[in-house]
């Protein structure tokens, strides 16, 4: 099973790297959101271990996309953070989680 605490820290670092300069201002909210994303990724991993998994591939793709939208929306609500930077930070954080999921979910 994945060490999700380590993955979460790496996801936070990835978002922080993209948002250098604004990170201090957004970190509290962003970390909370990345924690929630990590819990969902862990739940998806656990779900896939159950056969048959509860989530279909298309539902998985929808949840995955929703996680990125959620973080992007939360970050872009801050003044001084543009939609592009928010999108890049959300992509960077989710890429870390997805890299961990690939090991256990073939269509991740």
């Amino acid at each position, binding site marked *: 099973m994945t060490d999700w605490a380590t993955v979460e820290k790496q996801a936070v670092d990835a978002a922080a790297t993209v948002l250098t300069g604004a990170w201090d201002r957004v970190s509290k909210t962003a970390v909370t959101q990345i924690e929630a994303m990590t819990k*969902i990724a862990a739940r998806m991993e656990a779900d896939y271990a159950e056969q048959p998994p509860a989530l279909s591939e298309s539902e998985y793709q*929808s*949840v995955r996309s929703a996680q990125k*939208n959620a973080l992007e929306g*939360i970050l*872009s*609500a801050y003044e001084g953070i543009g939609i592009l930077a928010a999108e890049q930070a959300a992509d960077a954080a989710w890429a870390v989680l997805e890299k961990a999921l690939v090991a256990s979910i073939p269509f991740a």
Partner: protein
Amino acid sequence: MKPAFLLMALLALDGCAPAYDDVGDKLQVDTQKQIDAGLDRLSGDRQVTDGAARAKSTPGQIEAATTDASYAANIAFYASSLASLTALKSRMQALGDASSAKEAEAVAQIETNLTQVRDEHAKEGMLGAEYVALMKGTIDQQFIPLNQYELQLKAGKKPG
């Protein structure tokens, strides 16, 4: 308007907290409740059709829950919830301050996620209970900073 005066006006606006909008706050709370209620009902129906509650349900209850969990039975829920999100976004944009306009971007992403649920439902006909639970959790999480924003405004603070 002279550029120097315009700059001073903009600086003054930037230093002020946006005004608390009780209509927008109520609309936001109502919209979240509306989405939560619809997704909870959907999740409950799926528990009856396919989940833990199936064994304790009568054939009639299973049939009714199957109908209620279909896409066709939920078209009105999606339409009214998405309309509420559009109204909330418009209200925030109409307030005219930069901060509220940025909050509207967060609402737009809730709209995107609920649209995804609707589209998945339309494509599959039925949604899995786990999928509904994960999407409801995600959308609720998206409302947290918006609710914090309103609470800060209500307390007369400038949101961070």
